[in-house]
């Protein structure tokens, strides 16, 4: 739909709304996607999916009404305004009136992230063939490598590439438009060995880039780029390693002095243990484990030697936010607020929360670009890329080898299948472990689960090594909405075992 037509429809809707409401805003989101999935022996391909929906919000006398509308048509939007009037009459005035802080930088209209290789310029069949064929070739080559063990490798692929557009407009004249690509690949590998033992691993590669996230051009089409091939190979080989995985009893785990987390494992741990608790709507509802309902911190949330951030990474050369990467990165949020790096905790102490315009007004804070909606749903406070960085050189080690050198008995934990959060506790899965005995890696350890108390989970970080990565990507679920996110931290992070962090290793 052309921008001029959209503007005309929006203006009509605002005209309907202005006669009754003090304020209204509209979010229009549209996605065009190419998708392929392989499940077992079946392949499911959707060369094009188009979806678009609208979220309308209305304020009058401190009461808020929000409506999701199916179609971006004048009739549908005006009908929704009439429904909103009825709902507003049914709504009860909250004890503290609802208001929104103003949208910063109201004059800027266009926000664009350009892909290097645009999906729109490519033959979708060649793109999908390159992804599915590339993954299959990696799997078959590993089958040959492990021929003596007669492993059967079945990689299940989920790939999509999409172009996203969103428009945010309000009754006071704001009109902002963002366009960007997003590309995603997941390879979930199931392995069956001769003796019947089965294992699995999952790898994801994704970014807010075009096809270059995964592919490079050839003379006749496309092929997986070397980064993708290396990542896929590495995780399929880890599934093979798990055939020799051992389990450890609760007594064995109790003897450990350290856990060493890779950036994936640490990332999901931070996302679940801390990130959700910094979402200001959860704080306001009294559901945060790190602050009370007035926003007053309950105490320290991490070691004094680390900071917890949400947003894009800082570009080390320009010292500015790197808005070109990170699966959860966008230039403006779904209320039109420019996205900022949020320092959630500095040296272990709570510093800021992730706000939408409503919570920023409620807490008297500045908006920081944390409001997101899943295609027409309401804009709630969401993480983008949540990560840990060292705040002191005292905990930075040269590399993994030196980081584990003085660990008498511990475990390296790599990869995750995701996690979940409750108010005071969290849980995240671990794909594979490696036992450390007297400073050396000795055995492969089965998948596990890492759980902890939110407030205490990161108080015992005592070392890290390697570059900061936010490439652990996923889809965060909250209030029935999914949102693409990234998370991470240093390549390796060491946590001293303590009573608030639990590790349970799966059996044989």
């Amino acid at each position, binding site marked *: 739909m052309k921008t001029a037509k959209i503007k005309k429809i929006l203006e009509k809707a605002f005209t309907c709304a202005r006669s009754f409401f003090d304020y209204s805003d509209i979010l229009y989101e549209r996605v065009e996607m190419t998708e392929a999935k392989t499940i*077992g022996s079946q392949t499911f391909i959707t060369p094009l999916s188009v979806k678009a929906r609208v979220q309308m919000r209305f304020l009058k006398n401190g009461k808020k009404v929000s409506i999701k509308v199916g179609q971006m048509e004048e009739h*549908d939007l005006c009908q929704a305004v009439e429904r909103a009037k009825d709902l507003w009459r*049914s709504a009860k005035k909250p004890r503290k009136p609802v208001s929104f802080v103003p949208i910063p930088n109201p004059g800027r209209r266009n926000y664009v992230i350009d892909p290097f290789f645009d999906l729109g310029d490519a033959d979708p069949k060649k793109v999908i063939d390159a992804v599915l064929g590339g993954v299959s070739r990696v799997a078959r080559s590993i089958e040959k490598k492990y021929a003596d063990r007669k492993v059967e490798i079945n990689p299940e692929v989920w790939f999509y590439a999409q172009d996203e557009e969103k428009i945010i407009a309000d009754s006071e004249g704001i009109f902002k438009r963002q366009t960007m690509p997003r590309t995603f690949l997941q390879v979930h590998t199931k392995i069956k060995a001769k003796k019947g033992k089965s294992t699995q691993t999952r790898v994801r590669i994704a970014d807010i880039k075009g096809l270059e996230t995964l592919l490079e051009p050839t003379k006749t089409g496309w092929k997986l780029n070397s980064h993708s091939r290396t990542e896929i190979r590495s995780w399929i080989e880890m599934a093979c390693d798990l055939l020799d995985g051992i389990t450890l009893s609760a007594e064995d785990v109790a003897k450990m002095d350290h856990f060493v987390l890779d950036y994936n494992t640490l990332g999901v741990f931070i996302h679940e243990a801390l990130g959700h608790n910094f979402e200001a709507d959860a704080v306001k509802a009294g559901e945060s484990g790190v602050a009370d309902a007035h926003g007053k911190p309950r105490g320290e949330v991490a070691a004094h030697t680390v900071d917890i951030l949400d947003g894009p990474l800082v570009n080390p050369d320009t010292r500015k936010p790197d808005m070109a990467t990170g699966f959860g990165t966008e230039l403006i949020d779904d209320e039109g607020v420019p996205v900022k790096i949020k320092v959630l905790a500095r040296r272990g102490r709570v510093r800021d929360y992730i706000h939408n315009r409503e919570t920023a007004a409620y807490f008297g804070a500045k908006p920081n670009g944390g409001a997101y909606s899943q295609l027409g749903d309401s804009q709630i406070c969401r993480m983008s890329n949540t990560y840990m960085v060292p705040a002191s050189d005292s905990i930075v080690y040269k590399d993994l080898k030196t980081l584990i050198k003085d660990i008498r008995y511990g475990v390296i934990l790599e990869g995750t299948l995701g996690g979940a959060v409750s108010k005071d506790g969290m849980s995240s899965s671990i794909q594979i472990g490696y036992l450390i005995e007297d400073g050396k890696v000795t055995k492969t350890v089965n998948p596990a689960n890492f759980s*902890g108390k939110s407030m205490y989970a990161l108080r015992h970080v005592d070392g890290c090594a390697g570059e900061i990565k936010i490439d652990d990507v996923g889809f965060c679920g909250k209030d029935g909405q999914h949102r693409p996110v990234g998370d991470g931290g240093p390549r390796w992070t060491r946590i001293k075992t303590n009573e608030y962090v639990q590790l349970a290793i799966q059996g044989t």
Partner: protein
Amino acid sequence: MFEAIRKSVERIAVRHRLDDFEMLLSRHDFTSFTIEQRDLTVSSEVGVSSLGLRLIKNGRLTYASTTVMDEAALEHVITAALTNLQPTALAGFSEIPKGLSWDNADTKISELVARPKRLRDLLLTTVSETWEKGKGKFERLNGSGGVGLAEDWVYTSRSKEPSYRRSTGFNAYIDLDSRDFEVLVRSRLPKAAEIEKLGIKVARRLPKKSAKPSDVGLKGKEVDVILHPFCLGSLFSNVIAEHLYATSKLSGHSKLKTGEKLASSRFTIADDGTHPEFVSRGPTDEEGTPTRCNVLFSKGVFKSFVYDRETAILDEVSSTGNGMRRPVLAEENHEAPVRPSLRGLVMEPGKTKLKDMIKGVKRGILLKFLLGIHTADKVSGGFSNTAYLSYVIENGKLTATAEPGTWAMRGNALEILNNVKDVSSDRFLSGNSLLPWIKTRLYVG
């Protein structure tokens, strides 16, 4: 709405010389109140629709989907879909029997969707009654209440008429201090008293203290566990179901074999998409095969995998009416591939009352949720997850809530089937399942 879309798709199908097409069209309206610190906020969804298409041309299959309901958008997605056709075992889509039109909608609910004042009043009473009668037992009350009206059409070009379902849903949810909650999900409007007493039920049972495993001497031990129907349902749908799907049988990853005794004799469970109280009840699955009740386990003997039409052809059996659009993770339903999927679980009750089952546990845990169970190892059935919203049992009484993040529970969902010590006579209706509490044993990490 259906007729206009059907005609558009038919016109495009003729232009592109398609062999066959299948469409799943859905539309819903929904109104809900969010309860936050006893304040209510209203939101609504109006005319939210989606269309999932499967197309066959020259014996090959492709998918298309859209939420934009005009002919230009349909032409756009269908034209693109035809650029990538895949081999399929399907010779064509089903011929949907005539007369499969079900109107399960409750007029009381459909009226509330547009005029929710009575719903607001019911929820306000629930909040004030819970607050007054539960005084001192909790500090914070959150929750929600909603009503919805949905229509779904499944149609194929071989059919004379679509299968059609019009249904309503009601849900209410009350959470106290994020320590426990109660939920009510029904296809018809429950009695006012049932809604109003929802929070009081939670407040009455909520103990003052919480406990870590080490506080009750259970750290590192194998303990008696009573699985709440929520926990049993999530273990079933997240882990065990993977072994029930015909896709897993065909790929050799299922650990189940029909006719073998793979579970306790106490274990009889069916997948029943026809159950009159289920919100998702419908005349057919999402590819037009009539819905039926499939017994999965009978007295511990595994009876049947669940099939859609394509896996049924590949395994030379008939579809069990389980061809549904099941997302891999974050897609909307209409974008998801059609594959074997569970419709609604019904497990036979046992003979022990829940309160007697609890009385019979000296030291253990009543497990309501396993946090992050979706991350369990679906291949092996193994899981190690932390207990959430659960209760510690000491000497037959619920004495404390399980302290969050401290009860790491380890087990194997497939082994639990064989290790059912008891099944309650009480069952919980969750909207799309009817399950009892079961007693088993798990390790505390």
